[in-house]
């Protein structure tokens, strides 16, 4: 499999305080390789730096040191103009955790889809734009006539998350970062949303990075699991290897804390 994106000793340090500096190493010397068409899960507890890593890969947060290479181009140093950024975001896109916060409540939900169309160079008002939007909404199982023209507060969390996945479907990125895409949804909708990511990969060959703290979910869907702890990648490997034969202390701890059915708490 060809390498799609590579990070080399990526580090992000947050500093606060004007006189007395408080330094937090959110991401510490992370080097990962993402290949084409795989589903990778990034697992870790809150504050382990998962989202910070994702933001740096998405070109939303500048790293303190280290490089990110996407198809051979250095994301933070080679890309200069807005056109370059657009090219990058056309290829690397995201679905975020909180579907309610992903929509600006002042605009109809059509706006995020129109943004996607503008990104790939289709006029949102043209018949073709309309056709693409309707097609994308049908892929994620929404009825276009019942969805378009509505405001975010008129739709449920599951519907909103589907719309964001349909945005990814319109853009057809090579890499999709899903930052805890189902953690805000109830369990019955989760499965359906996860299936949509599978559809994306099967039909478009998208590489998907799942950021999650749910080991069970990571085990079920991914080809590879990365475990992150205090800013570092502490364990890496196939789901079977990581879940059945964990090497790092933190992974063992994590596995022990997963609640199981049929076992009484003592």
């Amino acid at each position, binding site marked *: 499999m060809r390498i799609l994106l590579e990070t080399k000793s990526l580090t992000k340090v947050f500093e606060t305080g004007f006189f007395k500096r408080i330094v937090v190493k959110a991401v510490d010397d992370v080097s990962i390789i993402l290949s084409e068409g795989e589903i990778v899960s990034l697992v870790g507890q809150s504050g382990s730096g998962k989202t910070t890593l994702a933001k740096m890969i998405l070109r939303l947060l500048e790293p303190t040191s280290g490089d990110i290479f996407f198809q051979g181009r250095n994301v933070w140093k080679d890309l200069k103009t807005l056109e370059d*950024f657009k090219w990058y*975001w056309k290829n690397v896109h*995201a679905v975020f955790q909180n579907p309610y916060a992903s929509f600006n409540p002042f605009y109809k939900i059509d706006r995020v889809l129109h*943004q996607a169309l503008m990104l790939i160079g289709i006029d949102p008002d043209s018949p073709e734009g309309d056709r693409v939007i309707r097609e994308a909404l049908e892929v994620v199982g929404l009825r276009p006539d019942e969805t378009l023209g509505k*405001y975010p507060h008129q739709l449920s969390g599951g519907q909103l998350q589907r719309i964001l996945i349909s945005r990814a479907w319109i853009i057809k990125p090579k890499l999709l970062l899903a930052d805890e895409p189902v953690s805000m949804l109830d369990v019955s909708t989760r499965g359906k949303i996860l299936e949509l990511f599978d559809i994306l990969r099967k039909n478009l060959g998208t590489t998907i990075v799942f950021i999650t703290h749910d080991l069970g979910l990571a085990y079920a869907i991914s080809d590879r699991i990365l475990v992150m702890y205090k800013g570092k990648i502490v364990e890496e490997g196939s789901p079977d290897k990581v879940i059945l034969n964990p090497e790092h202390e933190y992974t063992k701890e994590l596995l022990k804390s997963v609640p199981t059915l049929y076992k009484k708490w003592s």
Partner: protein
Amino acid sequence: MVTERLEVRSMKLIELLYLLFNNKRFIIGFGIIFFELILAFMGPLLYPVDPFDTNNPPSLPPSEEHPFGTDRFGKDVFALVVYGIRNSLYVGVLTGTFTILIGLTVGLVAGIRGGIVDEVLMSFTNVVMIIPNVLLAILILTYVGVERSGLELVAAVLSITTWTGFARAVRAQILSLREREFIYLSRMAGFSSIKIAFQDLLPHLATFILISFVNYMNVGINGEVGLSILGLTSISIVTLGKLLYFAAITQAFLFGQWWTFLIPGAILILLSASLLLIATAIDEVFNPRLRRM
């Protein structure tokens, strides 16, 4: 999350006006200000008396010929009040506009840019905050020359020190908004910072800006009164504050000429109260935590 969904409801203009006019405070406030606006703009047509005409008998109490009486110089108080309201409102609107423009620019730039720009701008804001505003106004107005300074300069002098609180509030709002996911999604669609500021951030600040504008209008009107009473504004421009100033220097209180200061004073209080009522009403309608359904 449920509260957040309820908090900002997109509404149409007619819906908004309907909600506003269902609010008692807004109706009272709007009624007063509407009456004063009518007085200010229709007054000279309905009551064609020159406010600078000194040929009337001086110090007349209210009568049929002069509804609000005349002052010591023989000027008609009603005509003066009509002109005064207009100029006072003009100072208020100018002060509101200047304050909002400066505060919004500083707050937006500091909030969006962040980092060193933020720190420099906020330090500057803090420095401006501790400058005594009346002292600065006295310095500027006496340096320019009281007779040469127009209402625009008065408004500018008042705005120079009042924008700080607003700038800090805007920055704080931006800081909390810019970490929301929809900002990231707009950015990833290739939107520039300016486009994001106007399309994604400003709508969230709109009601706050409106309320602040009304409040700063009030600050402007009352600030002008203060400067007038100190004798720091031009004598040839009639404002409500200037009428109080004339009443003070002609010792109207000692001579019992109540109409020269009570009437402009009452109108000033009504104007202030109505602006406060309108600001509170807007807050009440747009902020669901204060809304009584």
